[in-house]
């Protein structure tokens, strides 16, 4: 057993070192491919686009693998059942903060939104607290964080994390204050589910590493094509669109760009992985940070498929309140950052 453990620790340390070595030499490699292998002239539009493409793709994938793996290991400590027990009977606001934080680390897929919603509200988690969880869980995910960190640096990733949490906490709290419990579909009220007692598995550290590895396989396997497409479009923008071109369209000069960005973002969901590379390129061409943040959040947090799924348990007024309040939160984030930066 001890030799096996030593082996895994050694292998992990070696792979992190290897990872770091490749990661720090990516620029050299991408320059070599572009200018020596493909023999593209330096300083051309095409050269700039191709270099960007070969630099960004490995960089983004390496960071994504690392972040998804790390988040996977953290998530192996949290289950929706445990999260519910932590949130049940919590008072407002403190509960909203806790719910938004747990939303980041609890494994969640938006098609589970309905059973999770019912499981939460019928066992004493307040409605507003449940919403804080449901807003934060899809919005702040490892894919978005990994891509933001990889393409735009830790400051923008942290900004997204912080403002995303605030939107989830405050929107959930506001929904709680509106006391809209009557606008849950009637069949959910007084719903008694069978007590399901699935035994908690005892996980060893080895199991958790496997859990992280499976998360990498599943998530990277699902989103890689969107990321490559997104980076290809981003590379095109990077090489061919003139500097400051976006300043006129998505700049901070005109007030209507932020609401427009939010509106366009709502029906776009499936391309969340591809949208961030494009957004990064737009930012480089003079688009305003607040507008770009609002667009990203709206793409990722408000999605049409999830809204349709939630109609099973929410009446129209509560759905509209949910969309409206989250959209206003995102708008405020957009305006705030356009104002201060």
């Amino acid at each position, binding site marked *: 057993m001890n030799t096996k453990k030593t082996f895994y620790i050694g292998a992990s340390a070696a792979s992190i070192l290897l990872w770091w070595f490749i990661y720090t030499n990516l620029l050299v490699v991408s320059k070599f491919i572009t200018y020596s292998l493909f023999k593209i002239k330096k300083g051309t539009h095409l050269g700039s686009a191709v270099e960007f493409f070969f630099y960004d793709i490995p960089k983004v994938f390496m960071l994504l693998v690392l972040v998804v793996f790390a988040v996977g290991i953290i998530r192996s400590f949290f*289950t*929706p*059942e445990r999260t*519910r027990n932590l949130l049940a009977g919590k008072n407002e606001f403190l509960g909203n903060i806790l719910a938004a934080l747990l939303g980041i680390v609890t*494994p*969640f*897929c938006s*098609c*589970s939104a*309905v*059973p*999770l919603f*019912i*499981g*939460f509200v019928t066992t004493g988690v307040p409605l507003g607290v449940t919403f804080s969880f449901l807003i934060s869980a899809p919005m702040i995910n490892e894919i978005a964080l990994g891509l933001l960190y990889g393409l735009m640096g830790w400051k923008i990733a942290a900004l997204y994390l912080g403002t995303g949490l605030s939107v989830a906490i405050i929107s959930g709290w506001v929904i709680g204050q509106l006391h809209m419990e009557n606008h849950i579909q009637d*069949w*959910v009220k007084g*719903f008694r*589910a*069978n*007590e*399901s*007692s*699935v035994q908690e598995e005892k996980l060893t550290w080895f199991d958790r590493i496997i859990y992280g590895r499976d998360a990498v396989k599943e998530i990277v396997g*699902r989103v890689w094509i969107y990321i490559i497409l997104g980076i290809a479009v981003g590379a095109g923008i990077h090489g061919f669109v003139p500097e400051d071109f976006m300043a006129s369209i998505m700049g901070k000069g005109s007030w209507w760009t932020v609401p427009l960005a939010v509106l366009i973002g709502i029906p776009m969901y499936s391309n969340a992985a591809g949208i961030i590379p494009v957004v990064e390129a737009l930012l480089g061409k003079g688009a305003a940070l607040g507008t770009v943040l609002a667009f990203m959040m709206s793409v990722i947090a408000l999605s049409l498929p999830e809204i349709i*799924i939630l109609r*099973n*348990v929410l009446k129209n007024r509560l759905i509209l309140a949910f969309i409206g309040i989250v959209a206003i939160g995102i708008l405020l984030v957009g305006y705030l950052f356009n104002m201060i930066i």
Partner: protein
Amino acid sequence: MDIKVLGPGCSKCQNAEKIVKEAVAEMKIDANVEKITDMMKIAGYGVLGTPAIVIDGEVKCVGKVPKKEEIKKWLSK
């Protein structure tokens, strides 16, 4: 044996159903595999996530696609 796969129809849920059916076929046991997509019924099992797998009324796993070996272990009990 009565096996139910709970899930509305995302790719993970379809995957879970496929793996369960494969496990049943490989073990050559007599089992009825049913996919449940109705939200009301899924919620009735008290699970917080999908896909979930219920064997003879007992919830075996929630919120993940199980490995085939795991399913075989449940089936052989």
